[in-house]
């Protein structure tokens, strides 16, 4: 009886999916035509997704324009690639990852770190996009905690990190390498976590932040300037960030490699790093491990 009902539900679900597919095909034809005509003219339109809520790495500003370190570098890349025309599409961090994998977007930037898992789903080009300083935000009194190991030894609690954020992976990898001295890692939704506030109120003992964002928060015109003396930022790593390409976009990734090399040689990335992060991270490139 129960089996029968389940089968029944399954059949309906299948029928439902078929109908959906049917509906979809009706609306698609015009779009496909557009895409084809784009190809024939020689300039290829590509969609560049960016995390629209990740200031100062990438964000959609008050006037509705995409900007941020990652976006500005991609704009420079676009200038050097006459065969491509970039269209910037802002989205959430979740959607960016799934969208690139599915081919909704050809490439995406979100201050993304390199991780083993990601190489299976995306193409990492040979040349990285930028550098990002990751560190622990702590109360002044815990200043001596310099890295994840100290943090774990102290038994501190860490602000939740969104499960698809590479910061999560970094801590997770640390935990796997140090099974007897683990950081208490919790998955959450990045949207809700105001790391500075959480640490300062004592909701958690520490949180992981990107230096650029932290510095802007406590800067003289930042929203948390009043807390500038209560909190510290202890960098534990400078990490390379990468654009993520869809698996079918090897050619595009190669083209990107050539362009970004030139841009880096011209030191333009150094300028942007200073502009958005307040510091030229390329100076410490020699010490970067990841």
């Amino acid at each position, binding site marked *: 009886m129960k089996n029968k009902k389940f089968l*029944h*539900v399954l059949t*309906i*679900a299948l*029928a*439902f*999916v078929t109908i*959906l*597919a049917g*509906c*979809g*095909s009706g*609306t*698609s034809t015009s*779009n*496909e035509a*557009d*895409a084809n005509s784009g190809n024939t003219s020689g300039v290829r339109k590509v969609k560049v997704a960016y995390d*629209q*809520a*990740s*200031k*100062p790495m990438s*964000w*959609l*500003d*008050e006037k509705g324009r995409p900007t941020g370190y990652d976006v500005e570098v991609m704009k420079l890349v676009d200038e050097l690639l006459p065969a491509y025309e970039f269209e910037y599409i*802002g*989205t*959430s961090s*979740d*959607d*960016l990852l*799934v969208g690139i994998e*599915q*081919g*909704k977007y050809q490439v995406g930037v979100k201050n993304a770190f390199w991780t083993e898992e990601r190489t299976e789903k995306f193409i990492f080009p040979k040349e990285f996009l930028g550098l990002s300083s990751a560190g622990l935000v702590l109360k002044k009194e815990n200043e001596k905690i310099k890295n994840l190991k100290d943090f774990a030894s102290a038994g501190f609690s860490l602000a939740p990190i969104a499960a698809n954020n590479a910061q999560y992976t970094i801590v997770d990898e640390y935990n796997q390498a140090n099974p007897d001295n683990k950081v208490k890692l919790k998955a959450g939704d990045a*949207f*809700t*976590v*105001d*790391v*500075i*506030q959480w640490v*300062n*109120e004592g909701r958690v003992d520490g949180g992981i932040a990107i230096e650029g*964002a932290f510095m*802007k*928060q406590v800067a003289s015109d*930042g*929203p*948390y300037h*009043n*807390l500038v003396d209560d909190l510290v930022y202890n960098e534990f790593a400078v990490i390379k960030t990468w654009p993520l390409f869809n698996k079918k976009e090897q050619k595009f990734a190669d083209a990107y490699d050539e362009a970004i090399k030139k841009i880096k040689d011209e030191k333009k990335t150094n300028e942007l790093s200073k502009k958005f992060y307040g510091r030229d991270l390329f100076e410490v490139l020699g010490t970067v491990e990841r």
Partner: protein
Amino acid sequence: MEKYFDLAYIAESVPLLVPFLKVTLMVTGLSVLFGSILGFILAIMKLGNSKIAKKFAYGYTTILRCTPSIVLLFLTYYGIPAIAGNFGINLNDIDKAVFVVITFSLQFAAAMSEVIRSSLESIDRGQFEAAVSVGLSHTQAYRRIILPQAFVVALPNFGNSLLELMKEGSLAYTIGLIDIMGKAELIIAGNYNTHALEIYLALAVIYWTLSIVIEKLFLKLEKAFSKGKQVITTA
């Protein structure tokens, strides 16, 4: 508390948020439109004689009622293009808003099919027979006698479902749609993830006001139409 809380952020964010109400309302409006049409068809299937149609309609309603909006949203947004992709159709250039509308139309249809079904059933079968016996055709009987009455019965539930839809629509931010909720996320990001509480409060105030306005509107409508109902019953 004062250290983090600043009323000024609420006041500043409201005017920034309000323009994006347009997107929220458009998504809601279109979903209500398509959802009602689909819901009506489903309600007819439920009341009709075909067993298969009936089972399909009820099955559809159960499945949709059991799926959290956020899950349905992801499944339509990534599932439809993926399925279409298997047939060689490229849906990747379609705007996000379209998928949001599809999601909430599907969901609204499930709710509406029940609202419409129960309102049609609430009208006494005798009325239909009486109408036919005084010489009206079946369609006439439905159009002039049954539907107007069923409409009045359905109105409050329709209003509730609409409010529900509008609120659930806020979850479209998870796929990056910039409606009022998405804009709030951008404002928070613009403040480097700080002062989120104030922005949420501003959002809550806007949603609350909107809901009250819609509720009042439906009460008015109900009153206006029940007047018509009395005329029909006395006539």
